[in-house]
């Protein structure tokens, strides 16, 4: 197991649930080992004098029909009950693994038959299957173990099959196959290690289930036979006397429940810690910002549409906190197109989410000023802001599939927006939706409105998203990598669409992209972000040729254009951006900057006005080469290509 994995499992035990569950499980397992050694004779001691006594100092939960101490018997039965449950689980897991991996090993045709078989088997309730098998395998402990084992197998088979399919679809499996590695070896070396964790977790939880099933079978007399006894049998024996003294009857029941819970909760805690069923992370941003009608009133013409000063976003990180967005200040006028460029992780999207008040849960936003349409977004009630943002701000994301509800017709999703905020009636809302789809140039809008998102191509989905954004008339569209997943021809359509909306309706655009060329083409002004800060703010026309910040220059030079000299290596930015939690002292770019000096490593340069209409955060802004992008790397040296790696 990788060290990282081990620490995650240990991490699971740090949560209150984890500690409780693990302690409980430990106690159960310990009892299974120890109890028969300590209490066996006491549990078997027949004492005709003490038949069917209630609880007393000598027999805390009383005695049974033969005068044996019930508590001792319950404790001693731990071993058999747990062992049988584990054996059944082991059989289930093993059979499940064999069935689940068979499709991968046996090829497509046989695999399909096995998959069909599994599908039929999982359709039956577990206990029903167990009873069925119990009848087949015969009464007795061995039969019951097999029965419960085979009853749990289909569930495991299905799980294994799904996980194997997921892992098998990944490229490293394809690479292994190309390298001529056999199926079994691929399964053992690549597939199993990658599905082991969730399997172990599920098996742990299933052990709890087996325990219950076993108790059920024994209780019905199908499981363990006298003179052996497990909890199920004890429960059965005790039940006859339940009206005389309930404690004796319940002791075994309590033991079953506690032990089953111990297994279940431990599995649950580990699952949660390793992210198998993480609690739903925040609301989906797009759902929160359905734009509807323009908020009137407070906005004065001439003043800026969006005004942000010293915005930061902070997340707790253990005892500490990290600030992935720092000191972001920007102004947007009505109808203006401003771009934000930067590498992934530089804080572009988070800054945008902060402006839209959509930063997910533990994150906190601070700002000296955060005004949109004249309203201070920092003060006042969330509801009023949601309405203002909901009606005047539209957001478009990279992957429209995640922002559209896959189970609802596209037209209905658009219509919902106006129905909710304006109370428009169904017919009017629908008509508007179709109209907007037409406006974003969805062909056959009337028919398309009735389709589900997956029936749209990627480009159409993105246009539908934009259509949803302009169901009313927003004052600002924030588009976060809206064309990154699209082909150039489709990208052009989407960009043109945004451009048309912007000019026709005077809507401002905050356009986020990692592609400097696209930003330079679409926007009037460009903000360059690095390690959470804006490091340069310049007119788009100067981005490609007269960047003052060394990072901007490097970013521009790294991208080949249609006229890049093929004989020269592309400029590579050495190293990688710092993690938000581990910023170097001084300028965050210093470790990668060819111009860095001692001063850079000590003091962080402020974002200062430069040459009238631009801002730069660099001590040596005057030194930046007036673009010689091709030369910024050691030309001709093969090692230049490797610098990204060697310093990291």
């Amino acid at each position, binding site marked *: 197991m990788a060290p990282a994995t081990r620490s995650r499992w240990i991490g699971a035990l740090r949560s209150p649930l984890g500690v409780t569950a693990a302690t409980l499980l430990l106690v159960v397992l310990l009892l299974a080992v120890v109890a028969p050694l300590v209490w066996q004779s006491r549990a078997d001691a027949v004492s005709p004098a003490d038949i069917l006594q209630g609880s007393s100092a000598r027999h805390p939960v009383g005695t049974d029909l033969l005068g044996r101490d019930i508590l001792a018997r319950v404790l001693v039965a731990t071993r058999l009950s747990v062992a049988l449950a584990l054996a059944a689980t082991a059989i289930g897991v093993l059979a499940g693994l064999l069935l689940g991996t068979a499709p991968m090993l046996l090829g497509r045709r046989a695999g399909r038959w096995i998959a069909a078989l599994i599908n039929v088997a999982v359709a039956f309730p577990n206990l029903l299957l167990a009873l069925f098998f119990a009848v087949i395998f015969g009464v007795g402990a061995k039969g019951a173990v097999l029965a419960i084992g085979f009853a749990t197998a289909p569930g495991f088979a299905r799980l294994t099959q799904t996980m194997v399919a997921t892992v098998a679809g990944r490229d490293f499996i394809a*690479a292994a196959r*190309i390298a001529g*590695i056999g199926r079994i070896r691929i399964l053992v070396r*690549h597939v199993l290690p990658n599905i082991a964790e969730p399997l172990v977790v599920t098996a742990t939880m299933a052990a709890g289930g087996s325990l219950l099933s076993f108790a059920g079978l024994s209780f019905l007399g199908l499981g363990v036979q006298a003179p052996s006894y497990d909890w199920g049998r004890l429960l059965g024996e005790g039940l006859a006397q339940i009206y005389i003294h309930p404690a004796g009857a319940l002791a075994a029941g309590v033991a079953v429940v506690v032990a089953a819970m111990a297994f279940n909760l431990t599995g649950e805690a580990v699952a949660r810690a390793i992210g198998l069923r993480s609690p739903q992370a925040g609301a989906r941003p797009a759902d929160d910002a359905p734009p509807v009608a323009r908020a009137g009133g407070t906005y004065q013409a001439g003043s800026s549409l969006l005004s942000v000063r010293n915005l930061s976003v902070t997340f707790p990180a253990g005892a500490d906190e990290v600030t992935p967005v720092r000191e972001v200040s920007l102004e947007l006028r009505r109808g203006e197109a401003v771009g934000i460029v930067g590498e992934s992780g530089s804080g572009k999207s988070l800054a945008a989410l902060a402006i839209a008040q959509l930063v997910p849960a533990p994150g906190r936003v601070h700002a000296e000023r955060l005004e949109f349409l004249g309203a201070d977004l920092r003060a006042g009630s969330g509801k009023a802001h949601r309405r203002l943002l909901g009606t005047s701000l539209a957001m478009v994301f990279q992957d429209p599939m995640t922002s559209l509800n896959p189970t609802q017709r596209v037209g209905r999703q658009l219509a919902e927006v106006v129905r909710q905020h304006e109370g428009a009636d169904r017919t009017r809302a629908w008509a508007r939706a179709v109209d907007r789809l037409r406006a974003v140039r969805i062909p056959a809008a009337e028919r398309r409105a009735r389709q589900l998102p997956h029936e749209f191509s990627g480009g159409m989905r993105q246009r539908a998203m934009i259509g949803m954004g302009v169901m009313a008339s927003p004052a600002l569209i924030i588009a976060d990598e809206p064309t990154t997943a699209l082909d150039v021809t489709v990208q052009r359509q989407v960009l043109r669409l945004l451009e048309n909306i912007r000019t026709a309706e005077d809507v401002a655009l905050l356009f986020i992209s990692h592609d400097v060329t696209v930003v330079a083409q679409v926007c009037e002004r460009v903000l360059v972000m690095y390690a959470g800060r804006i490091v340069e703010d310049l007119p788009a026309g100067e981005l490609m040729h007269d960047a003052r910040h060394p990072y901007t220059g490097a970013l521009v030079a790294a991208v080949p254009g*249609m006229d890049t000299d093929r004989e020269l290596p592309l400029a590579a930015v050495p190293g990688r951006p710092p993690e938000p939690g581990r910023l170097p002292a001084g300028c965050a770019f210093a470790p990668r900057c060819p111009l860095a000096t001692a001063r850079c490593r000590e003091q962080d340069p402020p974002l200062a006005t430069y040459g009238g209409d631009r801002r730069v955060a660099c001590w040596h802004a005057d030194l930046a080469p007036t673009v010689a992008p091709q030369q910024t790397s050691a030309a001709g040296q093969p090692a230049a290509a490797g610098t990204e790696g060697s310093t990291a």
Partner: protein
Amino acid sequence: MRELRFEQVSVRFGSRRRGTVAVDGVDLVVPAGTVVGLVGESGSGKSTLARAAVGLAPLTGGRILLDGRPVREMSRAAGRPPLQMVFQDPYSALDPRMSIGDSIAEAIPRQPASTAAQRRAEVGRLLELVGLPADRAGVRPDELSGGQRQRVALARALAGRPEVIVADEITSALDVSIQGAVLNVVRELQRRMRLTMLFISHNLAVVRYVSDVVAVMYLGRIVEYGPAADVLGDPQHPYTRELLAAVPRAGAPLPQPPGESADADPPDPHQPPSGCRFHPRCPVGPQVVPGRDRCRDSEPSGAGHRNLAACHFAAAAGQARP
């Protein structure tokens, strides 16, 4: 390094009647020691063609030859395929449970006499070759950036001593500052080792930067093929022109399309259009220019046209260039 040749290659997914023909009768040559760039929109069949070459997609027709011998035969004879592939997603390309050194070592062909030390040395050499320090062999993928992973994937492909490398969108998941570094490695390797390579990308600027020859794919067919300078400098097929026009250019206004038709969505690969497959979108096709009914009725071939452009109205091969 040898020449890779696709002859009338077809790949169909699903049944004969209801399936999709992702690659339809493709003829394509990757000459020895050159990089052929394959461009086209997503869904045009680029990846399927690549996967067919390395045996990950079953052929339904045609042959794939390496210096005249079927690739499948060669891999059976040698016990390993003569082609290697590098994939798009650096995060799924490496087994997260294995050190990068082990991943690379796994791809080195097994020789009975080779010792552990020899294999280690070979891993180190391969890492250096792609610009990573040899002593990083012990790290796991999650300690590496996307660009570094992609270079490890390249090293793993080289480890198999392939005759040809197929690279499918290897830079499109990378950050721009890192993409440059990976492209440099590709270019450098090509120059030093005379690699034969099929380089797939939807980014024309990237393809232009690394390729000697460019092929353009549309809906399962190659529609234009020729030296990079010719195809990109003097495109003959209307679709190639569309692609070139759509490349974003800083400072330039967003180009307006010549007609509505160019905005039409890509057609359904289940039911490719009749005649020229590009005709519903073609800005100089039957939707726009009256009298070009031929485009709807008969399928154009590249033969005899400049850059082998599969368009009825492309210039003839011999004709003087403007």
